[in-house]
């Protein structure tokens, strides 16, 4: 009886507390879920706003003109000297024969991008058989036209405050009705370097610059980072000296990236005399920045290799180096690669250190070597974001989308490598 009573009260106490325990658990779960939802929400908002702003940049308004490559325009020995813009103007005049007067004609000519002439030049230089023929050519429209077609600038309001006059809008409408003005896929955006004309600007230069810079960063920071991690983790004795190094590496990982830029300027440019604006120096500066990340990640993954594997190898007489090279490194490699890729992704998004070494620059030509002047994707975004032309707004967002795609690819690669090479024991 007494025992029964006692058991009863114990269970009562447990039951009384139970409701509160479950309530706490529910609360904690809900808090966690809310946190996840909020962050997903912000991410979705960011993506949505970028995509909404940027997707239109993948299309470009183009105008179909009949270009008469009459032979008398060209001097076969010097094709570059021909007046290609006259060809464009002639094509436009044919469509609007009743436009007279110098001022009106100038306005008419403005509908087509100033880059159209260079496009024709390139066509002729590539294929001289065009001379003497008549061709229908899609030429990029001016960015103002593009913005109007995409609805980014309004066609109402006083004419004086609009970038396009009433007559120009009428011409555009006429061209649209003829089917000679259309939005087409914007290949220029992926094949061209930077330009001051939005309709001619592309990200290939910045992308190539990013790739070259990342290549240098990878080649420098990965072997050095892994070697440093292996030394510190496996060989270095635990003394105040190695403690100091460890503290410093952790500190370096938190140093603002601009500091590495200053170091790059002072050492790589001024002391070593390396060229400004070069992916080589950019990569060197960024590898300074990623090194601590790689070392820390590599040490963590070295630590996570189970001691039983080391013991097994030591137990049959492997030397320390053999234990590391044959057993520990292969097991730690996925973690090291993940750390490296995360460090690289960080470096891919950096602009501040590159500012100091001259990579924040207007560069039209696509770089082809490590010492050519180059810029990188985030710098290109930064420069476009500051450009006054309205059409650069969507291109900025589009460039951000490309950068995000790059980052997603890199992080995807990190996940893939981890899955592929991770070994269970």
């Amino acid at each position, binding site marked *: 009886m007494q025992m029964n009573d006692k058991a009863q009260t114990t269970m009562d106490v447990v039951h009384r507390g139970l409701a509160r325990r479950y309530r706490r658990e529910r609360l904690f779960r809900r808090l966690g879920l809310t946190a996840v939802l909020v962050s997903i929400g912000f991410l979705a908002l960011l993506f949505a706003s970028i995509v909404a702003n940027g997707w239109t940049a993948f299309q470009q308004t183009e105008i179909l003109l009949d270009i008469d490559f009459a032979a008398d325009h060209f001097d076969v020995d010097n094709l570059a000297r021909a007046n290609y813009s006259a060809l464009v103007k002639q094509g436009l005049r044919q469509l609007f024969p009743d436009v007279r007067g110098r001022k009106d004609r100038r306005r008419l000519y403005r509908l087509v991008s100033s880059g159209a002439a260079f496009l024709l030049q390139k066509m002729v230089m590539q294929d001289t058989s065009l001379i003497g023929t008549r061709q229908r050519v899609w030429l990029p429209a001016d960015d103002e036209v593009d913005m109007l077609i995409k609805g980014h600038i309004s066609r109402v309001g006083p004419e004086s405050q609009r970038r396009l006059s009433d007559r120009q809008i009428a011409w555009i409408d006429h061209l649209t009705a003829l089917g000679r003005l259309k939005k087409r896929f914007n290949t220029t955006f992926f094949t061209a370097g930077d330009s001051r004309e939005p309709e001619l600007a592309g990200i290939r230069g910045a992308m190539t610059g990013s790739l070259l810079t990342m290549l240098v960063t990878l080649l420098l920071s990965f072997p050095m980072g892994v070697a440093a991690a292996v030394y510190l983790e496996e060989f270095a004795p635990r003394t105040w000296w190695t403690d100091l190094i460890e503290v410093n590496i952790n500190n370096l990982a938190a140093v603002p990236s601009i500091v590495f830029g200053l170091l790059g300027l002072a050492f790589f440019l001024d002391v070593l005399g390396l060229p400004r604006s070069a992916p080589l120096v950019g990569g060197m500066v960024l590898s300074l920045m990623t090194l601590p990340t790689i070392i820390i990640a590599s040490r963590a993954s070295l630590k996570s290799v189970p001691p039983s594997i*080391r013991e*097994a190898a030591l137990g*049959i007489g492997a030397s320390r180096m053999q234990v590391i090279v044959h057993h520990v490194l292969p097991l730690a490699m996925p973690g090291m690669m993940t750390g490296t890729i995360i460090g690289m992704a960080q470096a891919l998004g950096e602009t501040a250190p590159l500012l100091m070494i001259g990579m924040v620059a207007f560069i039209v030509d696509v770089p082809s070597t490590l010492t050519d002047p180059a810029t990188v994707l985030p710098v290109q975004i930064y420069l476009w974001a500051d450009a006054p032309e309205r059409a650069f707004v969507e291109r900025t967002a589009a460039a951000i989308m490309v950068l995000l795609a790059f980052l997603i690819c890199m992080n995807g690669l990190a996940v893939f490598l981890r899955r592929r090479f991770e070994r269970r024991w």
Partner: protein
Amino acid sequence: MDAAQAVLKISDMPFPAVDEQQGTVEGAGPAPRADNRDTVGEPFVEDPRMTCRDVNVYYGEKHAIRDVSIDIAHNEVLAMIGPSGCGKSTFLRCLNRMNDTVDTCRVSGRILLDGLDIYGRLVDVVPLRARVGMVFQKPNPFPKSIYDNIAYGPRIHGLAESRSELDGIVENSLKKAGLWQEVHDRLDQPGTGLSGGQQQRLCIARAIAVQPEVILMDEPCSALDPIATATVEDLIAELREQYTIVIVTHNMQQAARVSRRTAYFHLGALIEVGPTDRIFTNPRHRLTEDYITGRFG
């Protein structure tokens, strides 16, 4: 191997004389009191493979092994038993210098393998560990194929001249470990995919592959089920024909089944050594008796 043998010749030192005082311990009449930490029984043998004298081990400030002296004979199975934390594993790890990997660990005294002081200045641990192999508590095959697990040791020591010779070593080792029948058709599959007992036998085969003289086993069956344990014990019984085996175990039945001699450790001291059947039937020391009768441990 060659290098180690060369070293052996250089440091061919005289066999150390058995300590007089310890010699008198043997055959003492009345059972020693419980606080007596001197070794009783028969710690020494004639023509030992390994000789340990006054071994002390410190982990930093902690004195883990106190004045242990014992001989290990040729082709015998010596079981080391004792309660948790008594230092039996620590002592085992001194026998192939696995304790070297622990920074704070300090070993004093002498441990001789075939007359060579393994802690001598000229001794290289790499060939030493090839001569004194080790099998661990938890099966720890490399995350490689079964073949590569066995072939790893011979490869790094350069024991095989050709691929066919290496194949021979692998087959032979697996046969000795009683695993050949089970795995001969899947040598290219990962060793980690085997069952626990198979993994442990794989580890034993891996140790055998470098032709060691002594095999140290640190509770090799503690992670295995009874059936796998029985298989491994059978294997140990076969191996003792060719190898000297030192086995640490928690399981007194196992010690009784596989070993010829048994050493009982207590709080870092070697309490009693003797033939296994004598230790289990007629212990001379109170602590040994308490332990094997289950009064503690």
